[in-house]
């Protein structure tokens, strides 16, 4: 078995998540259960080895909380938008498939952006081009080029928010330059 050893620090988010799931399922956050959960998490992570997710090495909680709140609001807006479109427009709704090139090339950020995009109003990832990190997005109720541009800007903004939360330092500085210029 030739596997790259992954450091404990790199694995830590996964382990913490597994412990949280374990304790949540038992509905018991006592020290004994926490310890046993950590043991099981380590055994599981060692036995069922998966390629490690390459994290950017930073996580900005101050940015994450507002992002999560905005995300929640957008989920609510998305549902009501679908309800409105279904009732008011129905079969006459127009949509489009749009290519959006992303800034980041890290798998984690592309995945996270794709997930968030799929849940915010009017967009859904149809296809991902990993080599150029381009998302092909199906937008509902996109009638003309202006709507398409708006959707594209939405997606880019979402990605910018995610980069600010957990992108690498280089990505953040590139983003700052882009915004500043």
């Amino acid at each position: 078995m030739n596997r790259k050893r992954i450091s404990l620090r790199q694995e830590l988010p996964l382990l913490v998540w597994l412990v949280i799931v374990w304790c949540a399922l038992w509905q018991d956050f006592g020290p004994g259960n926490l310890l046993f959960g950590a043991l099981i998490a380590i055994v599981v992570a060692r036995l069922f080895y998966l390629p490690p997710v390459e994290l950017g090495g930073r996580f900005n909680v101050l940015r994450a909380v507002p992002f999560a709140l905005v995300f929640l609001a957008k989920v609510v807006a998305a549902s009501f938008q679908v309800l409105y479109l279904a009732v008011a427009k129905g079969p006459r709704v127009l949509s489009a498939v749009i290519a959006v090139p992303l800034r980041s090339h890290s798998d984690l950020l592309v995945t996270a952006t794709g997930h968030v995009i799929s849940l915010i109003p009017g967009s859904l990832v149809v296809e991902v081009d990993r080599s150029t990190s381009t998302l092909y997005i199906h937008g509902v109720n996109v009638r003309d080029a202006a709507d398409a541009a708006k959707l594209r800007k939405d997606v880019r903004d979402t990605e910018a928010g995610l980069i600010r939360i957990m992108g690498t330092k280089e990505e953040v500085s590139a983003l700052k330059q882009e915004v500043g210029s």
Partner: protein
Amino acid sequence: MNPEPFSADMVIDAVSAVFMVVGALMSLAAAVGLLRFPDLLSRMHAATKPQVLGLFLLLSAVGLQMRSLWVWPVLVVAWIFQLLTVPVSAHMVGRAGYRTKHLHRERLSSDELEAVVQHAARKRGSTDEEQRGG
């Protein structure tokens, strides 16, 4: 708890009742969307988004009704799993739908993937470009 007729208990009950009714309405929204949207990809929007919000509201209602802090982690974990799985399955179905040409081209105002797909298909030398079913 309060001397007023509106006790905290009643407020929680009312909030969770509203959550439950709205959550059920979200399921109805998904059904209406499924019935009324013209093509597969628009129906995917209807199938995914209201489900996520509906489950969020209903799980919150469960949490409020249980009146116990220890159920919230389970509910949050259940919702996060939903958040992680719904876009994946939606993407898989959407991708399969696009590739098998389940689109109504006249309902799209623009399609920037088509050129890429056709370019790739030409490079592969396949000639099944005319078949675009409905």
